[in-house]
């Protein structure tokens, strides 16, 4: 209970701080939300994206799941995606992975963790698909990082293939897709893919990557 109490205490303290500086802060945000960003990230507790990017409430629509997956049959993600694009009209959709991701780690090994094993099938596919590149990598850490990067790229690709995004692109609306990785060691965001605005762009990114590592 001590931990929970801390949440309430902190909450009270923050509300007081904020309202003393700006009495209408919360009232203003009770109305319509018009966020510019949809953030699809990992459920990991070490990735406090709002704090890291300094966005205030109302600016970012957030969806998080283990290993920031975009699965075409995931009703939860699809609802979020459609609502964000068609109703909230967000301009940017960000898929963000992070190093030291437990989900990715699990997918690289053979250990069983229960239900999440099914969820991570996509990451396992990515590992297998890029086996030659990964085997060529210098060390275990480097290999892990590469899978995280590849996973983000793969999810941007999945995102680009969803009917919601395809439809929006066809109608000239442009949610730009971005793939980012949060480096948990130094706190910086690193870009994997920026301003993807069409299905060809993702394919190009995969090609470019393959060429750069001589695959």
């Amino acid at each position, binding site marked *: 209970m001590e931990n929970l109490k801390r949440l309430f205490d902190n909450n009270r303290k923050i509300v007081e701080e904020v309202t003393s500086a700006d009495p209408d802060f919360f009232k203003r945000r009770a109305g*319509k*939300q*018009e966020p510019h960003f949809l953030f699809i990230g990992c459920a990991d507790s070490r990735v406090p994206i709002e704090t890291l990017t300094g966005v205030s409430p109302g600016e970012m629509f957030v969806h998080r799941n283990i290993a920031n997956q975009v699965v075409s049959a995931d009703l939860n993600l699809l609802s979020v995606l459609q609502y964000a694009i*068609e*109703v*909230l*009209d967000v301009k940017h959709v960000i898929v963000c992975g992070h190093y030291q991701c437990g989900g990715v780690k699990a997918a690289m090994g053979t250990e069983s963790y229960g239900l999440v094993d099914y969820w991570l099938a996509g990451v396992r596919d990515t590992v297998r698909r890029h086996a030659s590149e990964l085997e060529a990598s210098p060390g275990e850490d480097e290999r892990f990082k590469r899978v995280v990067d590849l996973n983000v790229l793969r999810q941007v690709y999945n995102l680009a293939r969803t009917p919601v995004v395809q439809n929006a692109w066809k*109608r*000239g*609306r442009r949610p730009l897709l971005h793939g980012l990785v949060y480096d948990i060691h130094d706190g910086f965001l690193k870009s994997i893919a920026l301003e993807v605005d069409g299905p060809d762009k993702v394919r190009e990114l995969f090609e470019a990557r393959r060429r750069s590592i001589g695959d």
Partner: protein
Amino acid sequence: MSWIDGVVRRLTQAPRPAERDVVAAVRRLPEMAASWRNDLPASIVVFLVALPLCLGIALASGAPLFAGVIAGVVGGVLVGSLSGSHLMVSGPAAGLTAIVVAAIASLGSFQAFLAAVVIGGAVQLVLAVMRAGVLGYYFPSSVIKGMLAAIGLILVLKQIPHAVGYDVDFEGDETFLQANAENTFTAVLHALQRLEPGAVLISLVGLALLFVWDKTPLKNVRLLPAQLTVVLLGVALDIACAAAQPAWKLDASHLVTLPIPAQLADYADYFAFPDWSALSRGDTWRVGVTLGVVASLESLLSLEATDRLDPYKREAPANRELFAQGAGNIVSGLIGGLPVTGVIVRSAANVDAGARTKLSAILHGLLLAAAVVSIPALLNHIPLASLAAILIFTGFKLAHPKIWSSMWRQGSSQFLPFALTIVAILLTDLLVGIGIGLALGLLFILFEHSRQPCYEIVSPKGAVLTRVRLNEQVSFLSKATLAKLFERLEPGSRIELDGSQCRHVHHDVLELISDFRETALLRKIDLRLVGLDLPGATHH
């Protein structure tokens, strides 16, 4: 036995087209024969109704009486044969009397006027070639129904004086202000003060008979329709009065009055021929074109109206009708007849008398020709009161309360044009009234159309992006609706206008959108256009 196979094969194979036509015609023979039994009696009724109308309209037109009969014969036989309508009767029209009177006066002679009638017929042929008949499809149904009901009311009101023996106005008048300084209503009031007992008796008996006829076994006697019985009974009653109650005997002014020449050869004098020298005057052409256009309109209206009365709901081709009417007017003009049009009263009487095919209209023309020559003295015994009873009955059916209540149930967009058409026709005349009715009817249609949504907002309420999908057709009439939508948008709002489903967007609407694209920038509205091919900015 291969030859037998050949015969069998030929017999069982589908006949060639020409053979098929013959086969179809032969198959229809029993049907045609059956319709004889309906059409012959109906034609007699129409003939009896038409006779005083032809004479009355000729009288009112200031033309020789026989000109009306000629037009009746041509309208029945020639137009009847050429027309595609099964039940419409053509002949001299009350709606044209005003034009005819003025035209005869301005052209100086009836012969010069006949030349104009021929021109009118030629104009109708041209209209037929130009496929102007499609106009007929644009008469709003509510207005046509209003016209029928108005004609029904006019028939009842105008015939009441004839029914009680107040035969001052000419038969077939449809104008509110009569030539004798009375109007429809004062004429009825005057008439009710001057009852002619013989006429009242005849018309009341006639009306009673007509209203109960269908409830008695008499209705099964197809060869003797109620209307014919009423006429025969009227003649009989008048003769009986002459014997029993001489004061009630109707004098000639209350009976059909056909001119009776001394000898058969005198009929030749009744024919008049066009004065072709009139063609050199612009006036003749002006009258001709006016006649052609007005007669075409009246015929198309009558055609549309008769289609509605047809119990078999048959649709007649409009352009063929224009052709038939044009031919009719050319011939009528060439032999000294009045201009012809399709006429609703006679058509309605035709329907009421149980006609099934155009045979009835054709026969009525032949009967007119034959009877006027062979038995004029006999026809002059027919009391106008009997015919008034028939026309009042027809009028009652045309303006039946059931029609009013059914129009009322269809809502104000149907009822208002219907009722306003009736009022307009009652207070002016058929052509002016229907003109007003058509204008109002079209206004109602425009109003209804402009209220039709031309777009659908597909985004949920409160969405940041308002997504507007334009309908398949965005007509000129949608402009106001769309402009209102644009006006309502608040600064800073985002809107997507999706025209990808559109098949047709009116140019002016595209311009409106194009202009909005400019103002949207100033109003800080985020406008996104999808699938719209906009013309360039208009003010550069």
